Structure formats: structure tokens, C-alpha cells
């Protein structure tokens, strides 16, 4: 296990993040959603800290705490007053190897996870995104998403979960990030003491199911009455986060849709290309573009929520024209400076919060995007006009394109 520490002296807190290299990517059909289900079970007690103990201990200190599962990783964190750092360490080290995952609690939690899934299904954008991800990947497990299908959640067994836990939850498959109001040496030394006694497991091989090239556009339509307005999502296959093109793709997302999302109340990102082409022209209420840092090649996704009465065809055409334009013509110096400033400022905003400084660092390490916050910042700052155009040209091609339409049906 590798441990990383960083000083942040502006508030009397410490944030502890434990990252496990297991997520939707490590699942096979029939067990999709297992890593996420397991994440829930890590809150259900150990022999030393029975169910409810962790919640109450952390609540008692006013902690900010949670967990999440992505395609690549499962992550647990708590931000606590600095004098409670030891408690956070003790809880995380304990549940790394000693979670009970009882049959009774597995059954009780199953309905909670179904409820989580049902809440997501209420959102048309989730429904469309899940389908788009599924058609974009023929072989790679990224096509399965994270939360799993409702049927698979219902069929998940306690023994399967426990085996998944024992296999993936061990110090040699995890790393720790700690940031806070103490010297990095002290933070890391204390974490080392907490995790050192834990036994390693056999190393887990990364999944080997590379996605073969796509040879032409794929399309899908989701028709539901659950949404009132049409949505378009377009996903293009992209290289992984460790690829040299990753900073330019990150830059590209900001050029297209700004650094912060936000609906009508947001005043930033309005100089972006898609906002100008879609929102200022009354074609859409919202436009977004994202390039997520991932371990394996994933998707650059453009999404627009259409104004009522506007057709998908029309908006899709405008989006594709904008993508072709940025692939063809270099951005102007003014635009380049503006986007660069947004990107670098957004990095500072994130890292000025202790919790999110640790999250950002951990996500860079998880995916191999960079070795440190400074390394990533330097890579973003070094992006050139030519690299942005080249990244767009390499990405926005018909062969790599997956187009999804959400079509609201009449009630």
C-alpha cells in the first residue's frame, strides 16, 4: 500500500481517503453492481465496530464522510476535526479487512440499493446515459456502468459479495491519501501505523477486455414519458487518462461548455462554444461537455437539453458543426487564454477545499493521469492551441461517435 500526505493548514481538519482499485470495471455480466453493493455493506459493521458505530462516531465529530463507487475505483473518505484523525484511521483500517457483511444486513441493504437505482431511473438523463454507455462498449466492462441492473441487484448473494470483498479489499489493492492540518510526515506516519498490521492478499490482475475499434456511428433512442423535454447525448471514444492527449481533452471540454455547469442561475461558462451555439440561440436550455479521467479508454460526452418544440435533428446538426469547427480551426488567442484561465482557476477552487484537494489528488493517481496535483496543473498549463485542435480532430469523428436521443412520449 502506498500512502500520500499533504499539508493544508487553513482549517483545523484532516481528510482521509482510502481508494480501492475495484469498481464496475472489475465485474462480469451477472454480477454488475457488485462493487457498489459492497460499498454499502462496508457501513454495516465489523466485530469491533458493530453496525451504527461508525455512523455515530463520525457524526459525533461533525465529520463530512461518504463513499462512492465508479467504473474504476471504490473510495471511502472522512473529513474530521484534526484531533479525531486517529478515529478515522482506526475505522478505515478496521473495515478494510474485517467487515461482517452478514446475510441479514445484505437483505436489508438490498432494498436501499434498489431504491437508489429507482431514484436514478426517475432522471431521463441517467436513463439515456446508461443506454449510451451500453452501446458504446461492445467488450469492455465500462458498458455495464456501476450500479447494476435491478435484477442483478436482487440476485446478488452474500457469499458473492464477501468473496469480492476478500479479493479486492486489502492493502496491496488500495492506497491512502491524507490531507490536513499537520505535517505530511506526521499524517503519513500515523496512517502507516494504522494500516501496516493488515495482511496483503494475492494481487488482482486488471481486467483484460480491451474495447475493439468502432467502425461507424451507433445510434439509439430512448422513448419514455418520464421526461418532459428532449435530450441529446453524443459520446466519442477517447484515450485513457494516462494518455498524452488527456490534458488537451480536458481543455477541450472547457472550451465547449465551460468549467462549471449550472443551468439558468449560472453566470459562468457562457462564453463557451456550445452555450453560445445552443443556449444563446434558444435551441437548448443547457449544454455540457465532459471528458472524465479514466483508467481505460472511455468517452468524451456532449449533452444538451432541448427547448420544448426544438427537434433533435436540428440540435444534433449544430453540435456536430461546432465539433467540426473546433477540429478544423485553431481557437483564437483570446479564447485560448479565457479557457486556460477557467481551467486553471477551477483547479485552484477545487484544491482550496481540504476534502476535494485529497479527492483530486486521488483521482489523478487512480487513473494514472498525473503523479501529483502540481504535475497535473503543469500538464494543463502546458496545453497548446495546436494540441487542442489536434485532440478535437482525433476525437470528433463519425467512426467514434455514439448518438443517443431521449424522446419524451405523450402521457
Amino acid at each position: 500500500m502506498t500512502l500520500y500526505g499533504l499539508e493544508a493548514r487553513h482549517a483545523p481538519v484532516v481528510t482521509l481517503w482510502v481508494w480501492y482499485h475495484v469498481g464496475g470495471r472489475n465485474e462480469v455480466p451477472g454480477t454488475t453492481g457488485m462493487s457498489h453493493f459492497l460499498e454499502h455493506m462496508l457501513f454495516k459493521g465489523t466485530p469491533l465496530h458493530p453496525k451504527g458505530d461508525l455512523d455515530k462516531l463520525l457524526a459525533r465529530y461533525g465529520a463530512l464522510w461518504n463513499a462512492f463507487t465508479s467504473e474504476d475505483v471504490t473510495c471511502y473518505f472522512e473529513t474530521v476535526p484534526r484531533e479525531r484523525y486517529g478515529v478515522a484511521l482506526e475505522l478505515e483500517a478496521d473495515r478494510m479487512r474485517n467487515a461482517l457483511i452478514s446475510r441479514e444486513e445484505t437483505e436489508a441493504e438490498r432494498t436501499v440499493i434498489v431504491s437508489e437505482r429507482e431514484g436514478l431511473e426517475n432522471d431521463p438523463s441517467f436513463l439515456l446515459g446508461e443506454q449510451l454507455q451500453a452501446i458504446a462498449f461492445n467488450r469492455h466492462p465500462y458498458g455495464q456502468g456501476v450500479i447494476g441492473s435491478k435484477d442483478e441487484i436482487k440476485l446478488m448473494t452474500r457469499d458473492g459479495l464477501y468473496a469480492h470483498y476478500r479479493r479486492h479489499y486489502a492493502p496491496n489493492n488500495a492506497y491512502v491519501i491524507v490531507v490536513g492540518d499537520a505535517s505530511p510526515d506526521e499524517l503519513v506516519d500515523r496512517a502507516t501505523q494504522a494500516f501496516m498490521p493488515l495482511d496483503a492478499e494475492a494481487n488482482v490482475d486488471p481486467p483484460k477486455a480491451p474495447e475493439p475499434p468502432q467502425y461507424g456511428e451507433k445510434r439509439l433512442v430512448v422513448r419514455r414519458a418520464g421526461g418532459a423535454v428532449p435530450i441529446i447525448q453524443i459520446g466519442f471514444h477517447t484515450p485513457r487518462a494516462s494518455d498524452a492527449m488527456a490534458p488537451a481533452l480536458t481543455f477541450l471540454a472547457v472550451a465547449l461548455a465551460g468549467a462549471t455547469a449550472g443551468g439558468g442561475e449560472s453566470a459562468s461558462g457562457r462564453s463557451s462554444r456550445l452555450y453560445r451555439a445552443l443556449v444563446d440561440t434558444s435551441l437548448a436550455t443547457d449544454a455540457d461537455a465532459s471528458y472524465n479521467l479514466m483508467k481505460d479508454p472511455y468517452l468524451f460526452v456532449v449533452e444538451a437539453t432541448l427547448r420544448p418544440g426544438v427537434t433533435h435533428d436540428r440540435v444534433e446538426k449544430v453540435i456536430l458543426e461546432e465539433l467540426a469547427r473546433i477540429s478544423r480551426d485553431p481557437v483564437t488567442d483570446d479564447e485560448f487564454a479565457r479557457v486556460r484561465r477557467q481551467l486553471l482557476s477551477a483547479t485552484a477552487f477545487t484544491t482550496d477545499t481540504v476534502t476535494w484537494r485529497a479527492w483530486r489528488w486521488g483521482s489523478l493517481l487512480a487513473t494514472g493521469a498525473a503523479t501529483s496535483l502540481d504535475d497535473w496543473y503543469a500538464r494543463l498549463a502546458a496545453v497548446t492551441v495546436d494540441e487542442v485542435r489536434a485532440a478535437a480532430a482525433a476525437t470528433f469523428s463519425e467512426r467514434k461517435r455514439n448518438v443517443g436521443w431521449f424522446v419524451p412520449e405523450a402521457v
Partner: protein
Amino acid sequence: MDVRRRTLANGLRVVVAPIPGLRSVAVLLAIEAGQWFEPAGRPGIARLCALAMLRGTTTRDAKTWADAIDALGASARLDVGSHAAVFSAQSLGDDLGALLDLMADAVIRPALAEGEVELVRAQTLAQIEEDARNTRAVAERAWRELVYPPGHPFHARAIGDAAVVRSATAEEIRGHHGQAIRPGGAVLVLAGGIDPERARAAGERAFGVWEAKDGRTKREVRSVALAAAVRRLEVVPDKTQSDVIIGWPGLPRNDPRFVAARVTNMVFAADTFASRAGHVVRDELGLAYYVFSTIGASRGQSPWTVRMGVNPQNVERAIAVALDELRKICDGQVAAEDLALAQDKLVGELDVVRESPGGVAGLVLEAELFDLGPDHFERYPRELRAVTRDQVVETARSFLPPDRHALAIAGPPLPEAA
């Protein structure tokens, strides 16, 4: 916490909280222009005005203003809440002066041009249409309609009523701006990596020219109480989960019982894991993914609500269980451990929230907006700790009577109605 205040001649309070070691600064400008200050019978005007303020000024058109914000790399948004319209932003510390100039331009000198008002109107109507199939938004609308009579500032959501949005004119919006967007009662908070004197001077330079206005007509708002339990089910087609809101009209932030109300809220349902309702509904029975309650802070009776996302099969049981927990509190069944946990959590959060400039700015803003006093941060933890079991019971009985609640459910048909 290092907090420095100055009130400008026009009445605007500028409050600076330097946080050494940070690169950015969080800015909150709260103007008393939320729903509470909206013209009676015109819900939605405040938000239309706020959104139009972001679309160009008399010195910069919408494109130029947006380009300038993005050139700073700043994030910025303007939200209308129950009490205030809050312009929130973040920039690098060195850019604070330029950011405040842009914000002041939008606040003091918005163009509110016809074309931009039309765009904002169309966007708002599209959002209202989208919300009609959003179970959370539908539940929120239905709940407000159950609790607050027509004409009450909180009867509608801040987005307002579609008829009002359709009929609003640019002239009406300009009139609202002239009335409501004023420095008196407004607070500008600057928290982060800044030199306090330079930050204060930048605030004064940008907003010192904002002209004070004569006193405004006080809106008469009658107090609200629920005489019985009321309930509304709104079927939203093609959904799998129901969104449930159980709630009551709350109490003003300045009410001396508000601190006890915050503790009561935490004991009952504020936190999915640390509070009683969440513990039983999610942890013990597995009926919902999320269960939490919030108590609004405003000059009036903001909503005090419990929200849950529940499968239709489990809706009635989840509601019954949540109300049972409340009944136990009202019956005096508040374990010392539950009370201590709630107090510890609320006090502990005051430290943890200081991890971000936005968190510090939010703490400062509440204290200033509701005149909680310069010693608030020193007093507040003690006040939380001083709340007794009897006060929790009395607060629950007074403000959360289990048999006089308003219940809104939005989602698929419930089993008995299917």
C-alpha cells in the same frame, strides 16, 4: 475566525474573512430580494429579475459581460431563495477587484433589455415544463400549495408560476429591480486568500456607488398553521420512485427558539445516518435510499420538511415510521445519547465547514443576514450545547405536531390507487 465588518454609507455591510494559505476567494452578496420581498401575487418575478441581471448591463452587453467573467476564470451564479437573492462567486484572490466590478455592474446597472428578458422567460417556461415531470419538483410544488395560502411568499417555488412568468414585462422586471435590489439590508462577504484591507477596499470601490433607496412597503404576511393533516398525491407518469415530503411551516431565523429547532431537527431527521428517522427508515428497515430533513432560515415561516425517495410499495410504511419517530419525540422519548449526538454533530460541523472558503463565507453570511451579533461564532456552539431535552420535546410539539402535517407524494400511482 478572523471576521472584519464595515457598513458603507449606502447601508451595504462588507464583511471580510481572510483565510491565509488559500489561492481563491469566495464571494457571497446577499440582497434582501428573495421570495419574502416579492410583490404579492407575482411569484417568479424575483427569479426572472435575477436571471435577467446576468444578461448584460448598461455598459457591457450580455456577451461582453460573460466573456469578462470567463476571462477571470471565475465561477458565478445568482440564486433566489426564500429570504435573499444570493450572488455567489469564486475567483483567484488576485482577481477579486475585477470580479466585484463585474458583479456590481450586473447588480447596479443591469440592462434588463427586452430581448434578454424574452430569453430568460423562455428558459424559465422550459424549466417549468421540465419540472412538471420531475418528481422532486412536483412534490415540492404540491407541498407548498398545501401549506401556504395563495398570496403567501412561500406558496410557490422560487421559479414561480407559469402564468406570472408568461405575463411579466420588462417594465415590471425593471420596476422590481428598482424596488428590491438595494444596498440596505444587503451583505457582501469575502472569504479566502485575500488581504483584508485590500478586499474591503475593493468591495467599497465596486459597491460604494450603489445608491441607497427609501424604505420599502412592508409586505404583510399572515402566520400559517396547519389545522389538520393534509395530503396530496400527484401522479407523475413513467417513474419508478416516489418522492415524499412531510412538513410544517417553520419559524423565523431570528426566533429565539431557532437554535433549539436546529437541534430538534438533527435529533429527528436532519441526517440520514445520525438522526432517528433516517436510522429507522433506511438503516433498520431498508425502505429508502435517502431520508433527511431541513429547516429553512428566513424572516418568515420557511418550510421545515422531511424528504424521502421511496418505492411506491413502501411509501405508506415509510411515512408511518417517520411520523412514529416524531411522535416518540413529542412524547418525551428523547434519549440523552440522541440529544448529545445531535449537539456534537452540529458543533463539530462548525469546525469541518471551515475547510473551504465557501463554507466560511456561508457561516458568516447567516450571522450577518440575520443580525446574530458579532460574538455569534463564540456563542453559537454554547447555545447548541445548552439546548435541553425538554426544549427539544417542546419544539417538536410546537412546530412539528405529528397529526397536523402536510404530506405531498409525487411519483407512480400508489398500490391502493393503481
